[in-house]
């Protein structure tokens, strides 16, 4: 091949793509898309101020297919559900259910037993980037800096009834992993040498000084930025912390990395991590194979050991439903998985000493957020790809998933 041919190739590329022009509102579309994904990640797609809680009867009518390895159970039993319209569930602990409500994303606490609204708190725009319920039922909320009001990033620690709070400003915590009632691990996404910070906060309403100190031996490597994943950006696994990060140097593949051992990783171009959770000494992650179109954010559910080595049970690997996983949560040994499989938006199974049967819940639409206790699971779901506000629905945890 001569240099002339290479010149011809360059000229041919120029002329073949000369007609191509991007959409004039591409930047606006990208912003809207990014915000939409972010809203989904923080489960904050509420659009109407009013929140209504009601008790109504319902019947499980789960559609399910039976599979050789993991049985999909058909459930027909009476149950009760609680519906909160126009809000998004973000956490549950003890007697409280927390939801973001309305266009201003008011953080709202409900009494889970009576359905009564306990308190509503106005958060700085554009709303929280992460929310976690920690030991003692204390609520940790982190905020990005704001487009609109130029407010500083901050971290709040609120009492369970949301009446009191303490604050630390100036830290853009991508997320929060509570450790004790008053301390948590956070990661500041733009530090040059990324590692974890240990944050100490006064108890809500008490005097004291909040502080954040770098924690030695928690390096996540260089040239990385943290991802806010729907299932949580960091989890505790076998006494260590695992973080989802976006390694910009590798083209934006979301990977898992063991804090303090940045060479211990899982994920890559064909196995991008989208969400993770832990149950016992295992980590469960949803992967995105980089496919496009309808299945863009779907991929197999995997189980990893404490050293991030694959240990996915055959029953899980063989499930066509779990092959289309989108998001994952856990409570104790119960694993909840949002999937793109038709008729199986939300499934659950137990992952104790053995893997239990796969059970489909009667959730329609795309699951946006989930919070679970041992007996109840709270879900928001809406039409796929739509910006309509989801509805929070609670279901009893199926016996097969307890």
């Amino acid at each position, binding site marked *: *091949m*001569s240099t*002339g*041919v*290479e010149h*011809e*190739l*360059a*000229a*041919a*590329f*120029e*002329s*073949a*793509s*000369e*007609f*191509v*022009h*991007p*959409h004039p509102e*591409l*930047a606006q*579309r*990208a*912003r809207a*898309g*990014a915000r939409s*994904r*972010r809203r989904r990640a923080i489960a904050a797609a509420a659009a109407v101020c009013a929140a209504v809680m009601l008790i109504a009867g319902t019947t499980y009518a789960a559609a399910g297919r039976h599979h050789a390895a993991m049985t999909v159970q058909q459930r027909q039993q009476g149950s009760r559900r609680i519906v909160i319209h126009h809000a998004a569930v973000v956490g549950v602990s003890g007697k409280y259910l927390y939801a973001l409500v309305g266009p201003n994303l008011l953080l709202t606490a409900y009494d889970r037993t009576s359905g009564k609204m306990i308190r509503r708190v106005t958060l700085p725009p554009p709303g929280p980037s992460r929310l976690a319920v920690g030991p003692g039922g204390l609520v940790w909320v982190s905020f*990005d*800096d*704001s*487009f*609109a009001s*130029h407010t500083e990033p901050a971290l709040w620690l609120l009492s369970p009834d949301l009446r009191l709070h303490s604050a630390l400003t100036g830290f853009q915590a991508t997320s929060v992993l509570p450790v004790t009632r008053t301390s948590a691990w956070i990661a500041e*996404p*733009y530090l040059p040498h990324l590692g974890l910070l240990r944050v100490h906060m006064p108890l809500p309403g008490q005097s004291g000084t909040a502080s954040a100190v770098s924690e030695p031996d928690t390096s996540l490597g260089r040239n990385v*930025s943290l991802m806010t994943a729907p299932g949580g950006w960091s989890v505790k696994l076998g006494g260590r912390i695992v973080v989802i990060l*976006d390694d*910009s140097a*590798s*083209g*934006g593949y979301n990977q898992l990395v063991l804090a303090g051992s940045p060479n211990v990783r899982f994920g890559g*171009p064909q196995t991008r991590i989208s969400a993770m959770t832990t149950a016992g000494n295992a980590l469960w992650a949803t992967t995105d194979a*980089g*496919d*496009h179109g309808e299945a*863009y954010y779907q991929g197999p559910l995997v189980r990893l050991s404490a050293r991030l080595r694959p240990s996915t049970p055959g029953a899980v690997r063989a499930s066509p439903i779990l092959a289309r996983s989108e998001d994952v949560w856990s409570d104790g040994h119960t694993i909840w998985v949002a999937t793109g499989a038709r008729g199986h938006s939300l499934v659950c199974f137990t992952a104790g000493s053995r893997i239990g049967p796969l059970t489909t819940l009667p959730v329609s639409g795309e699951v946006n957020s989930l919070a679970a206790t041992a007996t109840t699971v709270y879900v928001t779901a809406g039409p796929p790809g739509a910006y309509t506000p989801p509805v929070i629905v609670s279901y009893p945890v199926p016996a097969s998933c307890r």
Partner: protein
Amino acid sequence: MRSADDADFSTFVAASARRLLRSAYLITGSLPEAEDLLQTALEKAYRRWPSIRQKDIPEAYVRKVLVTAAIDAGRRRKPASAPLDEDILPGAPDPAVEGVPGRAALLSCVRELPAGQRAVLVLRYFDDLTEADTARMLGCSVGTVKSQHARAMARLRELVANQPDGSMT
């Protein structure tokens, strides 16, 4: 993200989107798919904009995400199922390239190459990247870029020679 960053993002998109879209189109061979991939890459960049901007790498970041996704997309389908738009890149002489011997044949042969090799050629001859920069974009070694490039050119030579009016030398 602050409003200054927001404006900065818009400026970046206005300045870089067309070149990036053309690259994606040349690799994927489908304009709708290229548009979709570019928007997804920009969404990703927007979510990390302060960091990307701070490192002064926005175009490189978006191009890397875009090229990787375009290659992935290309690997998932047979070339025949997603040809370059026939109206734009026909096998017969195109008005835009008419009169340049072998160019139309060359382009029709490029679409027969594997997506990875197509990406190497687009990055080298459309985006005008060096071998080292191409390697960084593709997340591989310079040696791999060289070998992919050599294979692509050898395959192109074969394909053009087998064209009825093959005239490439």
